[in-house]
């Protein structure tokens, strides 16, 4: 059958042609605190971001019962912020979506299960992020529904290092 999708074959051999860039970096040390814009973030392999609420071992930031290894660093598409304004007339700043890294030109939803380079660091995408009702409480904006299926990407850190604004993002 010509129209049958062989997921295994595509997952193992496709080489997506994209190169993206890091546009914003943010972290917060505890739940609910405003995200602070940073020039660089230090990623620690297997643990998380130095000073961030989800750093494994720190664990001051879990809203949920599911602290997880795969949420060491989270990414969000700049294009989603543009789409929210275009489609829902919602202005959402890069400091408001509460993911750590805002990237441009990176098809995050295509990367689940793949490894890719974020500057000098190597990440492995574990799953799509899901929006959380808390974010509406924190921002006062009705963004839960518009963010379903485009709420970013959760990743493990395979190789640590320093990520800076302007760094390239590319397939590994």
């Amino acid at each position: 059958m010509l129209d049958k999708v062989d997921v295994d074959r595509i997952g193992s051999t496709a080489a997506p042609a994209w190169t993206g860039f890091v546009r914003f970096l943010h972290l917060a040390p505890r739940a609910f605190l405003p995200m602070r814009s940073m020039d660089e973030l230090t990623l620690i392999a297997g643990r998380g971001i130095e000073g961030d609420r989800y750093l494994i071992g720190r664990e001051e930031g879990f809203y949920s019962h599911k602290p997880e290894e795969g949420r060491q660093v989270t990414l969000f598409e700049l294009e989603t912020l543009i789409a929210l304004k275009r489609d829902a007339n919602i202005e959402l700043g890069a400091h408001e979506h509460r993911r750590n890294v805002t990237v441009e030109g990176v098809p995050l939803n295509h990367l689940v299960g793949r490894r890719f380079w974020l500057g000098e660091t190597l990440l492995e995408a574990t799953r799509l992020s899901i929006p959380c009702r808390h974010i509406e409480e924190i921002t006062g904006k009705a963004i839960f529904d518009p963010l379903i299926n485009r709420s970013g990407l959760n990743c493990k850190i395979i190789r640590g290092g320093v990520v800076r604004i302007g760094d390239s993002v590319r397939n590994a």
Partner: protein
Amino acid sequence: MAKMPITTVKTVVESVEDGGDGIKVFNLVDPDRWQLPPFRPGAHIDLHLPNRLVRTYSLCNDPAEDSRYVIAVKREAAGRGGSIALHDGIGPGDTIAVSLPRGGLPLDPVAARYIFVAGGIGITPYLSIASHLQRIGHDDFRVHFVTRGHLPFDHLLVPLIDDGRLVVHRTSESGRPDIASLLPEPQADTVIGCCGPESMISDFETATRDWPVGNLHIERFVPPPLATDPDAKPYTVQLARSGSEVMVRAGQSMLSALQEFGIEVPTSCCGGICGACKVGWLDGKPLHRDRVLSAYERERFLMVCVAGSDSPRLTLDL
């Protein structure tokens, strides 16, 4: 043991100052002096006190001061215990969990004129609002402060009195003023507000019956409004395994009722899409509202973060 979800903001008491008239002023900051969640002028927060008391206090400072929550607490010896716990048990370095700020003065749009009536410790939100209005250069506001005779926060209030922004009405000298006499006729460009004892708020509401609702701002320390069906009814959740019964108040979420009862349910999105809080149901008529369960699954499961009950009793497999 599974971690409970974090539902509060962690603060530490940086300093405690004397506000005069039996009032202590607590400065709350993040342990790392990080910015705190933002607030509107005159908003309030819940304090989760060590003895499991939860008490609500107005923020007194300018929202532009983004790394500090300032609250003022009058010691009420005959109160319900919150002010005593704070006055006698809390000092610099102590940790206090607080809620996200709620309420406060809507700022969009800014009204041409503001007139406020404050009774006693009800002056506190107007300290925040006055600081904000002065900072943005808004020079048409007035606060009528009804007090027994004492003037707390004199370093803050005296400059406002000198500027003609604050008028003190001492009940020890002339009784409580007629609230209506403090207010103008309804004006579209004027916002009026009140914070004080319930009897004063009630007088204010009577005096302002002819004002458009959008021009009134009453600061009451109530929980945030629940964005739920106004026809919501209370119901009872029966827990089949433990035999316990949990009452769910009208408009309350099943999840919050179970958590209050001490039942630990895994949660994540709290919006009915992630599936973390799926539990089985055995009897009753659930209202599902989630967006993940199929019709077949709904015959056996529900998502406690968004589900309700269409029957007075609902039995869960918990």
